[in-house]
């Protein structure tokens, strides 16, 4: 039932502008993909040919591979640790009589409110003293803290949507509390847990700021390695790395979308890593 007045010149101009903005959001990253297949030493658009040279360079370079696998390991561990830790505290927040609950709620949002540069510098100061820089433990701890708000909010949302009567029914049918949780509650909140794990993975895998400071010479995360390369020698290999990284992110998002059946998984999340 659109009225004619909806389609004024003003509205049309506003829509055209809005589409322009949507394209503006996508274009810079989208242009990198074709450029990464171009043979030009100085990336050109349109590329003057087709080559896989830069991908070959990426996958045969020790430094790039080391940092990629280091980041992958950290991201997988962060994803597991953050999901378990986040699920436990979410249960305490939703179902427990948690003493000092407001303090915990404040702590949950802390890492999104405090600028990443502040967390990064502070973590560097303390980790340097504790000999945690460049270690898997250090990275996983730092990234778990950073992912906490996203993990907890996602799991809380699925707990709040869960129909408690189902669990009550299981209990009254003779299930033990543990059985009821494992067979009734857990499958219900599983989509939320899976998307939380994927969020944590992405947050850790391309976290640039804390990684910048707590990497050391031998253990550099992929974002730290990218940062150095962008700063010192902008080679087309970077375009290949950027394309692979973006592809991985898209894959994780699609997986999250299906895991969450498109509900809470819609990653309408501002991620701490964007604050950089």
């Amino acid at each position, binding site marked *: 039932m659109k*009225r004619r007045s*909806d389609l004024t010149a*003003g*509205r049309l101009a506003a829509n055209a502008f809005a589409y322009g903005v949507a394209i503006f*959001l*996508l274009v810079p*990253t989208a242009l*990198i993909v074709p*450029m990464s297949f171009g043979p030009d030493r*100085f*990336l050109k*658009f349109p590329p003057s040919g087709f080559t896989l040279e830069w991908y070959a360079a990426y996958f045969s370079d020790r430094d790039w591979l080391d940092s990629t696998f280091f980041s992958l390991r950290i991201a997988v561990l962060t994803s597991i640790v953050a999901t378990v*830790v986040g699920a*436990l505290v979410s249960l*305490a927040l*939703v*179902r*427990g*009589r948690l*003493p000092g609950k407001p303090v*915990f709620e404040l*702590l949950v*949002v802390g*890492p*999104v409110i*405090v*600028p990443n*540069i*502040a*967390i*990064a510098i*502070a*973590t560097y*100061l*303390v980790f340097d003293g504790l000999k945690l820089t460049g270690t898997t433990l250090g990275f996983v*701890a730092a990234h778990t*803290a950073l992912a*906490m*708000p996203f993990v907890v*909010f996602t799991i809380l*949302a699925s707990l709040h949507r869960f*129909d*408690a009567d189902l669990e009550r029914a299981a209990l009254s049918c003779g299930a033990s*509390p543990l059985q*009821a949780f494992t067979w009734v*509650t857990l499958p219900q909140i599983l989509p939320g847990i899976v998307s939380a794990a994927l969020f944590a993975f992405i947050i850790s895998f391309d976290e*640039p*700021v804390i990684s910048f400071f707590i990497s050391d010479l031998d253990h550099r995360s992929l*974002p730290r390695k*990218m940062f150095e390369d*962008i*700063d010192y020698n902008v080679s087309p290999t970077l375009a290949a790395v950027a394309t692979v990284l*973006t592809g991985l*992110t*898209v894959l994780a998002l699609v997986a999250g979308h299906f895991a969450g059946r498109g509900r809470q998984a819609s990653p*309408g*999340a*501002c991620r701490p890593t*964007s604050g*950089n």
Partner: protein
Amino acid sequence: MTARPSRFMLGGRTYSPAASLLLATPFLLVLLLAFLLPLGMLLRESLFVPSFTVEHYRRVFDEPVYLRVMYRTIRISALVTLISLLLGYPLAAMMARTRGLMLNLLLVAVLLPLWTSVLVRTYAWLVLLQRNGVVNDLLTGLGLVDAPMQLLRTEGAVVLAMSHVLLPFVVLPLYATLRAIPDDYARAARMLGANGFAVFRHVTLPLSMPGITSGCVMVFLLALGFFVTPALIGGPQQMMLATLVQQQVTELLNWPFAGAIIGVLLLAVLGLMIVFHRVIRLDRFVGQA
């Protein structure tokens, strides 16, 4: 919450305070190690090294070099916020009117950049803005300029790239706010004789104020502490707060002063959060849009 039986207390049961604390202990340990303790130690450096002093904080405001960086950081952040709002509002408004496949495509356009590595997006701008890059090709091709311009290491480039990176943060809360406004209001205003602009000016705009505030505060906060994009796109002449802190730490090992700059940044962020905590729906950023 414990007073009335709620659907969140499964099976009518709640965990005892002791059990709840036990469940929250791993969380507490992680945040202690990687959040609270570090921030506490850094602030201690800024105030108690060698003994209690506000000297480091005074230095932040006394020396013109640092004042200039702070002023520039605030100016760039404000500009980025304004640009994000001007670009983001029409997009959010159209998304609020759109349904179906088109809406999903637009959501992807907003969410994909949000989740793409900030380094990838910054690198993309670096490539586009270089001397023989796409933007210069376009400008010379259209005859707008005679020779390729120096675009990188200018404040304009920093503002452009930061606006691009932060734009989704203003679009998402605006979209949520605008979509919650019932169509009836605009229809009623039209029936009373308002034209399109009057409807926007007197109905839509006032009702979307919470979204505007929320998005703008978020973008401004994130911009204040932005590190990657200004560090890579800007030069020394465009240095912002985060790069200054990095320099103090990695090059000069001046922890107390770095701590003081962070202290000032934290005060600003905390102040904004306290003033605007009613409109900032963090769950809207963290979790579901």
